[in-house]
């Protein structure tokens, strides 16, 4: 089931177009990545979803009906700039924000204790926000965003400012939240997190969608018929009519060979050739990283634009 949908959303500012007919569709209980270079229009889309700004044209839907002002209660939003009162104490502030979301004081307290324990930040309760580092503040804000258990969670650049340990912790929490039924949209430049977390993505460049779909599908489409074969011992296979050798190296007693199959080549033929060349340990399509895909897609688009 589709939980959230944006159809043909266009938003223009005085001098530039921020979004030009962008559509996304987010299945329930999935993680959706909004990717794109700086200034592509990701944050504008997020602000439209949160009804902070209205689109010039196009429509957005939650649970199949057009989004109403009341729906924001069903959305948790973590903005890119950290929205906390600097002079307030962490606990007090978290409690205040939770109560504004409609939780009773007791319930808010109970959930805060749970999350503060889980993220190991209980000791910060009485600290002022300004005493915390950027990453620490972000952790606090992450808690205040998810506390009221909204159906849809939107994180704008949730990993900036975190060290690798905290990045992993937040990733785990995002996966955990999905398991508990939440649907998550997040924007990021961190491509490895996209591979680990996202079910689907949209790549926005200069206000337009240039790539869209499930992460697995996109990666295999961009695989470009390349395979990595690992042999036990030093093996140097040679190409035939079905494939050509791209590179080969010897490492820790294994040979790692990358090949490119010719168009319409039968994988079984390639495997046959390999098994006769030596003892095959593994045979894998070599999937490009999202990082490579990102760079290639964006560069190609920009070149096309330059030509026109």
């Amino acid at each position: 089931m589709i939980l959230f949908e944006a159809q043909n959303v266009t938003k223009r500012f005085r001098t530039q177009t921020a979004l030009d007919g962008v559509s996304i569709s987010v299945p329930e209980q999935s993680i959706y990545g909004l990717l794109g270079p700086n200034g592509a229009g990701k944050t504008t889309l997020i602000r439209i979803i949160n009804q902070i700004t209205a689109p010039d044209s196009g429509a957005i839907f939650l649970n199949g009906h057009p989004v109403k002002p009341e729906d924001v209660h069903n959305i948790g939003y973590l903005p890119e700039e950290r929205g906390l009162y600097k002079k307030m104490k962490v606990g007090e502030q978290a409690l205040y924000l939770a109560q504004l979301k409609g939780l009773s004081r007791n319930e808010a307290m109970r959930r805060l204790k749970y999350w503060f324990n889980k993220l190991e930040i209980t000791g910060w309760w009485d600290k002022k926000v300004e005493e915390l580092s950027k990453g620490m503040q972000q952790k606090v804000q992450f808690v205040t965003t998810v506390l009221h258990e909204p159906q849809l969670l939107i994180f704008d650049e949730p990993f900036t400012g975190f060290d690798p340990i905290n990045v992993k912790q937040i990733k785990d929490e995002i996966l955990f939240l999905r398991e508990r039924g939440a649907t998550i949209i997040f924007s990021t430049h961190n491509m490895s997190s996209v591979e680990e977390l996202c079910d689907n993505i949209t790549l926005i460049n200069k206000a337009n969608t240039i790539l869209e779909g499930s992460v697995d599908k996109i990666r295999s489409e961009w695989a470009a018929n390349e395979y990595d074969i690992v042999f036990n011992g030093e093996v140097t296979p040679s190409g035939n009519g079905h494939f050509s050798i791209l590179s080969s190296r010897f490492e820790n007693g294994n040979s790692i060979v990358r090949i490119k199959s010719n168009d319409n080549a039968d994988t079984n033929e390639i495997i046959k050739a390999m098994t006769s060349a030596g003892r095959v340990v593994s045979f894998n399509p070599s999937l490009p990283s999202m990082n490579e895909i990102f760079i290639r897609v964006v560069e190609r688009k920009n070149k096309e634009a330059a030509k026109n």
Partner: protein
Amino acid sequence: MNKIALIIRREYITRVRKKSFIIMTLLTPFLFALLFIIPALVMSNDDKEFKKIAVVEDGADLFKDVIPDTKDTDFEYLEGININDIKTNFADLGYYGVLYISPQLITTPNAIQLITRKQPAIGLLDHISGSLEKEIEKQKLLAYNIENLDEILKTINTSVRIQTIKMDEEGSATETSTGISMGLAYLSGFLMYMLVFMFGSMVMRGVIEEKTSRIVEVIISSVKPVQLMLGKIIGVALVGLTQFGLWIMLTLAIVMVVKINVLPEGAMEQIQQLPQSFAEADQAMAGMENSPVSGEQISEFESLFASALNQPWGLIIFSFIFYFITGYLLYASLFAAIGSAVDNETETQQFMLPVTIPIILGLVVAMGTMQNPESSLSFWFSMIPLTSPIVMVARIPFDVPAWEIALSMGLMVVTIIGSVWMAAKIYRTGILMYGKKTSYKELWKWLTYKG
């Protein structure tokens, strides 16, 4: 809890807990108290320092014992002493100064010198010259050989002191002092200006903080922007009232404590006995020949005190609180709108000007009001809502007709409703706008947005 109540609570508590609030609240009453205490201390100190002045004539004894002693100064007439003998060492002999009178004084007004180490007080000089003038007049009159001169002089001894009586239509009179009214007008006008400006801009800074830190983006998913704005305005208003209330109570407490512990008893009794001793004062006035200086001082102080009691305190305090609340609401809503329209505090300037001009104009007119509380300028500025809080509180000690106060207050209430409505419209749009510099044209567009 109701969401707007939650917001008010936060705005109030975070501000009241701030160090700067606590320091301001505790220190200001000391400054206020000093305003009351210093004059009293100065008065009582005058009495304490006892002075002895040597009076020296060159040979002649034309002015022996002519200058009467006052409460704090004795005049010792030294016979047969040359001025040059004492000129340099009078201080060692225990004198405050030497008064050297030359016999030519009768014909030459400046043939007299007072030699002192310190600058003598004006009162002392007046006392000396007054006594000598009287004596010289007497001696000149004596030259005409008039019979019963002493009695004649007594009967023609005159003194003029104007008592100002304010008569209302029913004919009941109150003794007033323009001085006290002016002081009150000045204090209320200036205090109003300060409070409205201080708390108004506190609202603005709060709005800018929420906007720049994007807190507002998180919060408006929970509450309406208008609720956030009203919560802030009301919260800060309560902070202002708390501070103001504490100032009054602490000032009174400090004045009391100082009265009891620090001021000499005599000075205190003077103040306490003032109301009863009116009759005495009148007597003292009647028998003014050889009038002791202190008698005059007391009666002046007395009437000041009495007219301070006669001020319409109830009306003054009520209207001050009314105009503080309404003036604050008016300016705070404007300041909130400004705060929402800009990205940081430095950008506020272009919008601040039209808001600060009326406030400063109000202060200027209020100060002029003290010279002429009935002028048409004062009247109109105490009606125009942007200036009326400051100008009206400055006019009230001078007795303003009830209908004028009612009209001014009514206009104020209507204007607030309008300004809050307007501010809410600008705020709603402005608080979520970033990046581009807002123009007046843009503000107008936000105001006229439907819905």
